[in-house]
């Protein structure tokens, strides 16, 4: 499989205010994201998750090292539009990324910027809204929608540009559980059905558990990298970094300290129940 995003020896320092020295975030970070994969990026506050995401489509440019998106160097100013067309971004606050007053006109904003012809925009907008399940709301005003619906509109706005990859920066942080589920279902579907590469930055372990691969950032370095089962079974390491595993793994881990020896890779409730059932039965 080819790579969509590759980060090579990335270093980045936030510029200091006036004479103060800058704050280094990354010193030598390497990461590749395979095409069509679903990668979750975890990390405690201030570990550089969002900063990393902003490097994926030239919002921030590396101080050292290179970031490639679909083979294009993000520092190449001439290909800026092509880069941003390849990697779409969805942010935390749905209110602050919706530009227009009507849902469908907001979704059209990206394709309009790309200079797509009017009938094609119409098709793309309808398709995008159908994919996120918001087609019936196409003539609504965004401020009357719920948080989850707004975030789905924001996702539709990104997929209307037909990107290869979507980077979601804590898209569910401001949503209630229902909205969170709506957004996650949409993201999963886009990844499975459309083959869009997804990079999900999140605080919720249960969301990360849905990914194919979990990358844990700590102090500007990649601390853990693997399948959700591999990463979450290292509960003690996660705790050291101020993170937690999904509740089911935490439960098994706690039981293990009480003398059980349960496997630490049950990521959903069904699986966990089965493990406990087997142990208690024996």
């Amino acid at each position, binding site marked *: 499989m080819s790579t969509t995003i590759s980060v090579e020896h990335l270093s980045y320092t936030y510029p200091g205010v006036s004479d103060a020295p800058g704050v280094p975030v990354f010193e030598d970070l390497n990461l590749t994201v395979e095409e069509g994969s679903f990668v979750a990026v975890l990390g405690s506050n201030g570990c550089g998750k969002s900063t990393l995401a902003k490097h994926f*489509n030239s*919002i921030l440019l590396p101080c050292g090292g290179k970031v490639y998106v679909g083979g294009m160097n993000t520092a190449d100013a001439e290909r800026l*539009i092509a880069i*941003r*067309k390849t990697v*779409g*971004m969805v*942010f935390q*606050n749905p*209110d*602050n*990324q*919706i*530009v*227009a*007053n*009507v849902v*469908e*006109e907001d979704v*059209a*904003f*990206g*394709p*309009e*910027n*790309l*200079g*797509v*012809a*009017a009938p094609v*925009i*119409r098709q793309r*907008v309808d398709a995008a809204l159908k994919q996120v399940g918001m087609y019936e709301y196409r*003539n*609504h*005003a*965004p*401020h009357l929608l719920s948080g989850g619906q707004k975030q789905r509109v924001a996702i539709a*706005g*990104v997929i209307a*540009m037909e990107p290869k990859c979507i980077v979601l920066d804590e898209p569910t942080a401001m949503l209630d559980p229902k909205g969170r589920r709506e957004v996650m279902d949409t993201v999963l579907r886009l990844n499975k059905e459309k083959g869009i590469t997804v990079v999900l930055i999140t605080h919720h372990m249960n969301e990360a558990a849905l990914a194919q691969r979990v990358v844990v950032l700590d102090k500007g370095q990649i601390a853990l990298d693997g399948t959700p089962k591999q990463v979450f079974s290292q509960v003690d390491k996660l705790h050291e970094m101020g993170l937690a595993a999904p509740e089911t793994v935490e439960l098994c881990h706690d039981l293990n300290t009480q003398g059980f020896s349960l496997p630490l890779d049950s990521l959903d409730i069904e699986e966990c129940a089965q493990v406990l059932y087997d142990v208690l039965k024996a």
Partner: protein
Amino acid sequence: MLKDITLGQYFPGNSVVHRLDPRTKLIALIVYIVALFTAGSWLTYAIAFGFLAVSIAVSQIPLKAIVRGMKPLVFVLIFTGILNLFFTGGERVLVSFWRITITLEGITRAIFMVVRILMLISATFLLTYTTSPISLTDGLESLLSPLKKLRMPVHELSMMMCIALRFIPTLIEETDKIISAQKARGADFESGSLMKRVKALVPILVPLFISAFRRADELATAMECRCYHGGDGRTKMKLLRLKRPDYCAFLLLTALLCVQAIVSSVGL
């Protein structure tokens, strides 16, 4: 209290008025205002009123919405009415005491002025209620596009207007939240002298401005992410095209102006 502000809010719908080209509606509003200001008799006012009433009826906009939008303007209306009532000279004096005289002309003039403002605002509401802000700014952009040659930032202006309109409800909601939060901490906005009440607004305005700036920053990033790079090479999903209802509207407007002109010249 902030929920009452309906100025510039769009009522989605599918009436003929909704479907008119925004440029038609903008020009119609200007023509209508001209017609209103040339009106000077009961008959001409009646014609202008009839035109507006039919337009509102066709648009299916609830009358309540228009009346609600008038509320903040009650003071201006009363002020205009009183001013015209007392300061219009005339022959037929009805009441006269101290320095105030009320004449028959004054009463007529006051009624005309108030009615004129009411119709003017209703017509403006009809435009903003039936036209989504985006198509409104599209229409403005298209009408003003000849100015691009004079290096006027027409696209930028229409984008700014569009975003401002988009954030009105969001910021109103935010203001409501801040007011509640400050009330919860014991802030008092309702009592005290005028000065004190103005000062009490500071703890609302400061957080509101900070949050607005933060929003602006995030929005700018989000727009850049969606490949926004100014007006060059930008296309539109909804192309503006004049259709038959638009031509009909122009015909009706011309008719309105002609009738007004004829009626006034005859002296009715």
